[in-house]
Protein backbone atom coordinates (compact mmCIF):
# COMPACT_ATOMS: atom_id res chain seq x y z
CA UNK A 1 0.00 0.00 0.00
CA UNK A 2 1.44 3.35 -0.99
CA UNK A 3 1.39 5.91 1.74
CA UNK A 4 2.36 9.13 0.09
CA UNK A 5 0.44 10.81 2.85
CA UNK A 6 2.24 9.73 5.99
CA UNK A 7 0.08 8.39 8.78
CA UNK A 8 1.07 10.07 11.99
CA UNK A 9 -0.57 8.14 14.74
CA UNK A 10 0.46 9.85 17.93
CA UNK A 11 3.16 12.45 17.61
CA UNK A 12 1.73 14.31 14.70
CA UNK A 13 1.87 17.64 16.49
CA UNK A 14 5.59 17.28 17.05
CA UNK A 15 6.50 16.71 13.45
CA UNK A 16 7.81 19.79 11.67
CA UNK A 17 6.40 20.83 8.35
CA UNK A 18 9.05 23.31 7.36
CA UNK A 19 8.33 25.61 4.50
CA UNK A 20 9.12 29.15 5.53
CA UNK A 21 7.63 30.62 2.37
CA UNK A 22 4.21 29.08 2.99
CA UNK A 23 1.58 30.07 5.52
CA UNK A 24 1.73 28.25 8.83
CA UNK A 25 0.10 24.83 8.52
CA UNK A 26 -3.30 24.32 10.04
CA UNK A 27 -4.91 21.34 11.68
CA UNK A 28 -8.49 20.53 10.76
CA UNK A 29 -10.87 17.93 12.09
CA UNK A 30 -13.28 15.80 10.08
CA UNK A 31 -15.85 14.19 12.35
CA UNK A 32 -17.22 10.76 11.45
CA UNK A 33 -20.58 9.94 13.00
CA UNK A 34 -23.78 8.07 12.18
CA UNK A 35 -22.23 6.48 9.11
CA UNK A 36 -21.19 9.79 7.56
CA UNK A 37 -18.10 11.91 7.07
CA UNK A 38 -18.70 15.41 8.39
CA UNK A 39 -17.90 18.55 6.41
CA UNK A 40 -14.50 18.62 4.73
CA UNK A 41 -12.55 21.87 5.23
CA UNK A 42 -12.66 23.93 2.06
CA UNK A 43 -9.24 25.58 2.10
CA UNK A 44 -6.72 22.85 2.60
CA UNK A 45 -3.07 23.45 1.83
CA UNK A 46 -0.03 21.28 1.52
CA UNK A 47 1.43 20.88 5.00
CA UNK A 48 -1.92 20.97 6.79
CA UNK A 49 -3.05 18.08 8.94
CA UNK A 50 -6.41 16.38 9.02
CA UNK A 51 -7.55 14.77 12.24
CA UNK A 52 -10.17 12.10 11.57
CA UNK A 53 -12.35 11.93 14.67
CA UNK A 54 -14.43 8.76 14.62
CA UNK A 55 -17.31 9.37 17.03
CA UNK A 56 -19.34 6.55 15.53
CA UNK A 57 -19.91 3.16 17.11
CA UNK A 58 -18.31 1.44 14.10
CA UNK A 59 -14.80 1.07 12.83
CA UNK A 60 -14.27 3.19 9.73
CA UNK A 61 -11.45 4.09 7.40
CA UNK A 62 -10.41 7.10 5.38
CA UNK A 63 -9.12 5.59 2.19
CA UNK A 64 -7.98 6.82 -1.20
CA UNK A 65 -6.77 3.55 -2.63
CA UNK A 66 -3.07 3.66 -3.40
CA UNK A 67 -2.67 7.07 -1.78
CA UNK A 68 -3.67 6.80 1.87
CA UNK A 69 -5.50 4.31 4.02
CA UNK A 70 -6.21 5.01 7.67
CA UNK A 71 -8.14 2.60 9.85
CA UNK A 72 -9.96 4.45 12.61
CA UNK A 73 -11.43 2.38 15.41
CA UNK A 74 -14.72 3.41 17.02
CA UNK A 75 -14.18 6.36 19.33
CA UNK A 76 -10.58 6.94 18.15
CA UNK A 77 -8.74 9.50 16.07
CA UNK A 78 -6.12 9.32 13.36
CA UNK A 79 -4.05 12.02 11.72
CA UNK A 80 -3.08 12.58 8.12
CA UNK A 81 -0.54 15.18 7.05
CA UNK A 82 -1.12 16.52 3.58
CA UNK A 83 2.14 16.33 1.67
CA UNK A 84 0.79 16.58 -1.87
CA UNK A 85 -1.45 18.94 -3.75
CA UNK A 86 -4.41 17.79 -5.79
CA UNK A 87 -7.88 16.33 -5.42
CA UNK A 88 -8.22 13.15 -3.42
CA UNK A 89 -11.60 11.38 -3.28
CA UNK A 90 -11.86 9.15 -0.25
CA UNK A 91 -14.24 6.51 1.04
CA UNK A 92 -14.63 4.31 4.05
CA UNK A 93 -13.38 1.00 2.67
CA UNK A 94 -15.77 -0.88 4.98
CA UNK A 95 -18.80 1.24 4.06
CA UNK A 96 -18.11 2.58 0.57
CA UNK A 97 -21.27 4.68 0.53
CA UNK A 98 -19.42 6.99 2.90
CA UNK A 99 -17.54 9.40 0.66
CA UNK A 100 -15.73 12.71 0.64
CA UNK A 101 -13.05 14.62 -1.18
CA UNK A 102 -9.94 16.49 -0.10
CA UNK A 103 -8.83 19.38 -2.30
CA UNK A 104 -5.31 20.36 -1.40
CA UNK A 105 -3.83 23.59 -2.74
CA UNK A 106 -0.12 24.53 -2.67
Amino acid at each position, binding site marked *: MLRRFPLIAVAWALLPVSNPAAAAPHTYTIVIDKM*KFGPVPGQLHKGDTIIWDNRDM*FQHSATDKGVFDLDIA*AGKKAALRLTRTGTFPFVCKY*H*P*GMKGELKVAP
Partner: protein
Amino acid sequence: MNRIFAPIVFAGLVAMAAPVVAADAPNDAQIAHIAYTAGNIDIAAAKQALAKSHNAAVRSFASEMVRDHTAVNDKALALVKKLHVTPADNPTSEALSKGAAAELKTLSKLKGGAFDKAYVNNEVAYHKTVNGALKDTLIPSAKNAELKSLLQTGLTLFQEHQKHAEELAAKLK
Protein backbone atom coordinates in the same frame (compact mmCIF):
# COMPACT_ATOMS: atom_id res chain seq x y z
CA MET B 1 -29.24 -19.93 -3.88
CA ASN B 2 -30.18 -20.34 -0.29
CA ARG B 3 -32.82 -17.94 0.83
CA ILE B 4 -34.56 -20.08 3.30
CA PHE B 5 -35.07 -17.59 6.05
CA ALA B 6 -35.66 -14.49 3.98
CA PRO B 7 -39.26 -15.39 3.06
CA ILE B 8 -39.98 -16.28 6.67
CA VAL B 9 -38.75 -12.93 7.89
CA PHE B 10 -40.68 -11.18 5.17
CA ALA B 11 -43.86 -13.08 5.97
CA GLY B 12 -43.54 -12.33 9.65
CA LEU B 13 -42.93 -8.66 9.14
CA VAL B 14 -45.65 -8.28 6.56
CA ALA B 15 -48.09 -9.93 8.91
CA MET B 16 -47.03 -7.49 11.57
CA ALA B 17 -47.20 -4.44 9.35
CA ALA B 18 -50.25 -5.08 7.24
CA PRO B 19 -53.15 -4.01 9.46
CA VAL B 20 -53.04 -0.30 10.23
CA VAL B 21 -54.13 -0.85 13.78
CA ALA B 22 -52.08 0.37 16.69
CA ALA B 23 -52.43 -2.89 18.56
CA ASP B 24 -50.79 -4.78 15.70
CA ALA B 25 -47.75 -2.53 15.40
CA PRO B 26 -44.73 -3.78 17.32
CA ASN B 27 -43.99 -1.92 20.50
CA ASP B 28 -40.52 -0.71 21.46
CA ALA B 29 -39.76 -3.80 23.54
CA GLN B 30 -40.63 -6.04 20.59
CA ILE B 31 -38.75 -3.84 18.13
CA ALA B 32 -35.65 -4.00 20.31
CA HIS B 33 -35.93 -7.79 20.43
CA ILE B 34 -36.38 -8.10 16.67
CA ALA B 35 -33.43 -5.80 15.93
CA TYR B 36 -31.19 -7.57 18.42
CA THR B 37 -32.20 -10.98 17.11
CA ALA B 38 -31.58 -9.91 13.51
CA GLY B 39 -28.10 -8.72 14.48
CA ASN B 40 -27.27 -11.90 16.34
CA ILE B 41 -28.35 -13.99 13.39
CA ASP B 42 -25.95 -12.19 11.10
CA ILE B 43 -23.14 -12.52 13.65
CA ALA B 44 -23.73 -16.28 13.84
CA ALA B 45 -23.73 -16.55 10.05
CA ALA B 46 -20.50 -14.56 9.87
CA LYS B 47 -18.83 -16.73 12.49
CA GLN B 48 -19.79 -19.79 10.49
CA ALA B 49 -18.24 -18.17 7.41
CA LEU B 50 -15.05 -17.41 9.32
CA ALA B 51 -14.87 -21.05 10.38
CA LYS B 52 -15.50 -22.46 6.90
CA SER B 53 -14.31 -20.02 4.25
CA HIS B 54 -10.78 -19.63 2.94
CA ASN B 55 -11.67 -16.79 0.61
CA ALA B 56 -9.96 -13.58 1.83
CA ALA B 57 -12.73 -11.29 0.59
CA VAL B 58 -15.45 -13.41 2.14
CA ARG B 59 -13.56 -13.58 5.42
CA SER B 60 -13.04 -9.82 5.43
CA PHE B 61 -16.75 -9.28 4.83
CA ALA B 62 -17.65 -11.73 7.59
CA SER B 63 -15.30 -9.98 10.01
CA GLU B 64 -16.99 -6.71 9.16
CA MET B 65 -20.39 -8.24 9.89
CA VAL B 66 -19.25 -9.50 13.29
CA ARG B 67 -17.68 -6.16 14.18
CA ASP B 68 -20.54 -3.91 13.01
CA HIS B 69 -23.46 -5.98 14.24
CA THR B 70 -21.78 -6.50 17.60
CA ALA B 71 -21.37 -2.74 17.90
CA VAL B 72 -25.04 -2.14 17.14
CA ASN B 73 -26.20 -4.85 19.51
CA ASP B 74 -23.98 -3.58 22.32
CA LYS B 75 -25.49 -0.14 21.81
CA ALA B 76 -28.99 -1.60 21.74
CA LEU B 77 -28.40 -3.48 24.99
CA ALA B 78 -27.11 -0.33 26.67
CA LEU B 79 -30.12 1.59 25.42
CA VAL B 80 -32.77 -0.86 26.65
CA LYS B 81 -31.02 -0.96 30.01
CA LYS B 82 -31.06 2.82 30.20
CA LEU B 83 -34.72 2.92 29.20
CA HIS B 84 -35.64 0.10 31.60
CA VAL B 85 -37.15 -1.79 28.71
CA THR B 86 -37.06 -5.58 28.65
CA PRO B 87 -36.85 -6.82 25.05
CA ALA B 88 -39.95 -8.92 24.41
CA ASP B 89 -39.86 -12.10 22.38
CA ASN B 90 -42.47 -12.19 19.64
CA PRO B 91 -43.47 -14.23 16.59
CA THR B 92 -41.22 -12.26 14.24
CA SER B 93 -38.15 -12.87 16.39
CA GLU B 94 -39.08 -16.51 16.66
CA ALA B 95 -39.50 -16.83 12.90
CA LEU B 96 -36.15 -15.12 12.39
CA SER B 97 -34.38 -17.49 14.74
CA LYS B 98 -36.04 -20.58 13.33
CA GLY B 99 -35.22 -19.61 9.77
CA ALA B 100 -31.65 -18.73 10.67
CA ALA B 101 -31.08 -22.09 12.34
CA ALA B 102 -32.26 -23.84 9.20
CA GLU B 103 -30.00 -21.68 7.06
CA LEU B 104 -26.96 -22.39 9.22
CA LYS B 105 -27.68 -26.10 8.87
CA THR B 106 -27.97 -25.83 5.10
CA LEU B 107 -24.76 -23.85 4.80
CA SER B 108 -22.91 -26.23 7.10
CA LYS B 109 -23.20 -28.91 4.39
CA LEU B 110 -21.47 -26.78 1.77
CA LYS B 111 -17.76 -26.30 1.21
CA GLY B 112 -15.33 -24.07 -0.67
CA GLY B 113 -16.71 -21.88 -3.42
CA ALA B 114 -20.21 -23.30 -3.05
CA PHE B 115 -20.31 -22.21 0.57
CA ASP B 116 -18.89 -18.78 -0.23
CA LYS B 117 -21.50 -18.11 -2.90
CA ALA B 118 -24.37 -19.38 -0.78
CA TYR B 119 -23.26 -17.38 2.26
CA VAL B 120 -22.84 -14.14 0.33
CA ASN B 121 -26.05 -14.57 -1.66
CA ASN B 122 -27.90 -15.14 1.56
CA GLU B 123 -26.30 -12.03 3.05
CA VAL B 124 -27.67 -10.02 0.13
CA ALA B 125 -31.15 -11.42 0.59
CA TYR B 126 -31.06 -11.15 4.36
CA HIS B 127 -29.93 -7.54 4.47
CA LYS B 128 -32.43 -6.60 1.78
CA THR B 129 -35.25 -8.11 3.82
CA VAL B 130 -34.14 -6.66 7.14
CA ASN B 131 -33.66 -3.24 5.55
CA GLY B 132 -37.18 -3.36 4.18
CA ALA B 133 -38.52 -4.25 7.60
CA LEU B 134 -36.53 -1.48 9.28
CA LYS B 135 -37.65 1.12 6.78
CA ASP B 136 -41.29 0.15 6.47
CA THR B 137 -42.18 -1.22 9.88
CA LEU B 138 -39.67 -0.99 12.70
CA ILE B 139 -38.51 2.62 12.36
CA PRO B 140 -42.02 4.04 11.77
CA SER B 141 -43.34 2.03 14.73
CA ALA B 142 -40.62 2.97 17.22
CA LYS B 143 -41.85 5.44 19.81
CA ASN B 144 -38.68 6.23 21.73
CA ALA B 145 -36.52 8.80 19.94
CA GLU B 146 -33.22 7.17 20.90
CA LEU B 147 -34.40 3.78 19.73
CA LYS B 148 -35.64 5.30 16.48
CA SER B 149 -32.29 7.03 15.97
CA LEU B 150 -30.37 3.80 16.60
CA LEU B 151 -32.58 1.96 14.13
CA GLN B 152 -32.01 4.67 11.53
CA THR B 153 -28.24 4.40 11.98
CA GLY B 154 -28.67 0.64 11.75
CA LEU B 155 -30.56 1.00 8.49
CA THR B 156 -27.78 3.15 6.98
CA LEU B 157 -25.23 0.59 8.12
CA PHE B 158 -27.17 -2.41 6.83
CA GLN B 159 -27.73 -0.73 3.47
CA GLU B 160 -23.95 -0.47 3.24
CA HIS B 161 -23.69 -4.13 4.13
CA GLN B 162 -26.20 -4.99 1.42
CA LYS B 163 -24.19 -3.05 -1.18
CA HIS B 164 -20.98 -4.68 -0.02
CA ALA B 165 -22.59 -8.13 -0.19
CA GLU B 166 -23.95 -7.43 -3.69
CA GLU B 167 -20.50 -6.36 -4.90
CA LEU B 168 -18.97 -9.44 -3.36
CA ALA B 169 -21.64 -11.71 -4.86
CA ALA B 170 -20.93 -10.28 -8.32
CA LYS B 171 -17.22 -11.07 -7.91
CA LEU B 172 -17.93 -14.64 -6.83
CA LYS B 173 -20.00 -15.48 -9.92
